[in-house]
């Protein structure tokens, strides 16, 4: 298993990583989720050995890796732009990591066939990679990364260059391939939906630090900071003061299920998907936007100057400018 202890890295007096520690168990798929510039790609390059940390150490099965050069680590790394050999065939591309590992021609051939079958490109051996579609090229890159049976596979925004429909299809395939192989994987992305779908465990990164970690369901259900909540797409975060039995915000007193010290300043998240319109009770506001989203409709409400967004199913006929009252059924306190 992989262990990082207090990894730090500074570029041009900017601290990109601040004492990051994490571990990845065998067969686990861990996602690093964060905005661009949060340090996630730097972390990958340090793990791969392409860059040295300023402080901290990297271990595999309790053996330090710092002095092991990248080509002896047997870690795979795959990027957003597939970085294939543009002038070579599919088989030659997949063979590269097998050649460096000094496999015989027969071993190479068998493994290439196996890998292409795994990624759904059986029979593509002799195709020129330039004639393949974006999705097919990305599959070739995956086959190439998996061919040398890396102890750890790192995927850096692997689907970032593809359009939505293709991304969803490939994400499904990727999950199934990684799970079927029991491949230990670190997946880097800035897209929360990819992270939700593929991870056993998610690590939210911000400004060089891991700010929250846990299974996707847990992180989604209980974001622990305003940053995480907003990054996961929840915009209803408000400051308030703890009063008797809830939190007093600018627009309403909200009941919360956490015991808090009266008078303390805190932040609350109103879950957008758990609310209903009411005739008499709830937060009063004016509808400023109604936007159809397919399965749900997004309702934007101005409540005493605060903007609240809700994602509701089966919304009654409602128009911009209407006065409404809305009862949020889940309000969470997010520390700090």
């Amino acid at each position: 298993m992989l262990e990082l202890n207090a990894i730090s890295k500074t570029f041009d007096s900017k601290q990109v990583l601040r004492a990051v520690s994490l571990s990845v168990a065998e067969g686990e798929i861990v996602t690093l989720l964060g905005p661009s510039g949060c340090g996630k790609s730097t972390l990958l390059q340090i793990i791969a050995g392409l860059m040295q940390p300023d402080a901290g150490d990297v271990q595999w099965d309790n053996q330090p890796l710092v002095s092991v050069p990248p080509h002896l680590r047997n870690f795979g790394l795959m990027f957003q732009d597939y970085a294939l050999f543009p002038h070579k065939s599919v088989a030659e591309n997949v063979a590269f990591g097998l050649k460096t590992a000094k496999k015989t021609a027969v071993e190479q051939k068998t493994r290439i066939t196996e890998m292409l079958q795994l990624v759904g490109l059986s029979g593509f051996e002799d195709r020129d990679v330039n004639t393949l579609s974006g999705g097919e090229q990305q599959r070739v890159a995956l086959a190439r990364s998996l061919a040398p049976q890396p102890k750890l596979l790192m995927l850096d925004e692997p689907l970032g260059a593809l359009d939505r429909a293709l991304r969803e299809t490939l994400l499904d395939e990727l999950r199934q391939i990684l799970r079927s192989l029991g491949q230990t994987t670190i997946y880097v992305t800035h897209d929360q939906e990819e992270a939700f779908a593929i991870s056993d465990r998610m690590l939210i990164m911000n400004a060089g630090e891991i700010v929250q970690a846990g299974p996707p369901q847990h992180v989604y259900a209980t974001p622990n900071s305003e940053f995480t909540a907003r990054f996961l797409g929840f915009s209803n975060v408000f400051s308030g003061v703890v009063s008797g039995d809830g939190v007093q915000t600018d627009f309403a007193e909200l009941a919360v299920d956490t015991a808090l010290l009266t008078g303390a300043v805190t932040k609350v998240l109103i879950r957008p998907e758990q609310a209903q319109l009411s005739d008499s009770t709830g937060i009063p506001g004016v509808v400023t936007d109604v936007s159809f989203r397919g399965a749900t409709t997004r309702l934007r409400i101005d409540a005493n100057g605060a903007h609240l967004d809700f994602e509701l199913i089966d919304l009654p006929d409602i128009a911009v400018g209407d006065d409404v009252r809305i009862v949020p059924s889940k309000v969470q306190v997010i520390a700090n």
Partner: protein
Amino acid sequence: MQVLLDALLAAWQLIISGDPDLYTIIGLTLRVTGSALFFAVLFGLPLGVVLGLRNREMKLGCLTPLINTGMGLPPVVAGLLVFILLSNQGVLGNLQWLFTPKAMIVAQTFIAWPLVVGLSMTAIRNVDDQLALQLRSLGATRWQLAMALVQEARLGIMAAIIAAFGRIIAEVGAVILVGGNIAGETRVLTTAIVLETRKGEFGLALALGIILLLLALLANIGLHRLQGAE
């Protein structure tokens, strides 16, 4: 117009009749330029590749302007420097190479070399950065990485060699200086054109000009093909 038509007709007859003077000149041109290209690639390509690989990781400091200066060096200045070097008072004066094909090869090598270095360096540097990272993570040693990148840059490297060929075959100043334009010995296409034109032998001059133009065009077409293939 008549003079041009007469000259063109004469040129055509010289070319198809296999005029020995004409073919001596063509032969010497190809020998001189071919040898110069060989040496320029021999000494230039490895350096270009090494610099290209280095350059992926760090700035080269003053090396880049130096190479650019070499690539922009007027051939006649190169010829002048080689002339001084090979003159009786020069460091290599003892070799007695001045006014021989050897001097012309030296001068053309001098002109072609920075082009080979600079353009092959650029070709290596233009290979996708992520490909290099990717290959290292796939277990490539430094040597395997270098070989893979050279292979990826092979079209650019060939383009560098063809560009150098096109430059030196059409060049006059350096060869006229160090070769001296001695009939049958150091007379190549460009210098022969100058001499025959002065003598009023427009037919022979045009025949030589057509051959030179064809060689230059071949190089040009080759470059375009290579750039199209990328």
